[in-house]
């Protein structure tokens, strides 16, 4: 038999892994982004409003990264990083979403009025 005999613990582990996979979806806000913040090396270098379409570039660790804002969404158009993950991420439009380009130390974060969620704090 190739398949090991499953035990109760296996199902508990699979359930826990699936559950922790669903949690971020539940807490995720579906608000539309109002602005996009651009961080390089952890420092915020720009904040761009979502409503105006524009194409601009910022200086990442490896050179120029070209970003495009279109119809309330933002994407990376050009980057000279090796794996182009930031470009493959495509457009992001909801508050809380992000595009990361590790080689360029760049992160783009979509922010909304309530990017932290519905509540400021919950007291028990």
């Amino acid at each position, binding site marked *: 038999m190739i398949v*090991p005999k499953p035990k109760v*613990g296996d199902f*508990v582990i699979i359930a826990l892994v699936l559950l922790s996979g*669903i949690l971020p979806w539940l807490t995720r806000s579906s608000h539309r982004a109002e602005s996009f913040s651009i961080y390089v090396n952890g420092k915020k270098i720009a904040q761009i409003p979502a409503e105006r379409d524009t194409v601009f570039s910022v200086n990442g660790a490896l050179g120029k990264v070209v970003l495009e804002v279109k119809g309330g969404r933002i994407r990376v158009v050009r980057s000279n990083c090796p794996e182009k993950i930031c470009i493959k991420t495509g457009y992001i439009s909801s508050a809380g979403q992000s595009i*990361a380009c590790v080689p360029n130390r760049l992160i783009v974060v979509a922010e909304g009025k309530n990017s932290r969620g519905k509540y400021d704090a919950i007291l028990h």
Partner: protein
Amino acid sequence: MTQSSIRKLAYFSALLAVALVIWIVEDFLPRPAPWMKYGFSYIAILLGMTALGKKYGIALGISRTVVGSIILGKLLSPAFILSICATLAATAVMALLLTGRGKFVSLIGISIAGAFTHLATQIFVAGILFYKIEYLLWLIPVSSLWSIIAGGVVAFITNAVEKTAIASTLQSKVGK
């Protein structure tokens, strides 16, 4: 050095060689995201853990990451830091769960728990060192699905290898 510890060292080296080859070849294979590998080198680590002992399994994980990163030229890079933290956490979790093997958990659970720990640790360490953690949380759902698939496959292969002559000689020669 007793004969048994010399034997263990020899088997440890052989398993490390297997883990290294798989780890390095895997680095060139296409995958959903660069931080989401298949984790087949954990087959060798799990075999080492069951046949030689838990300490050896953890040592296999650390050695695989360090030596593999030297060969790939990634030593001390951000990817290496994420990888070594994740490997430490994953091997520790698997060693812990292995004590309950056969009683309340099988290789499937152990392997999936290890895979998810590896991916989740990477996300959290990246969140602490390089980004704000709340921007990376959306990576968790993908990781959870991927770890169930990859972890399951690793469990099946490890279980199949354990049934072969290689693993049984390993177990009988080393003797627990």
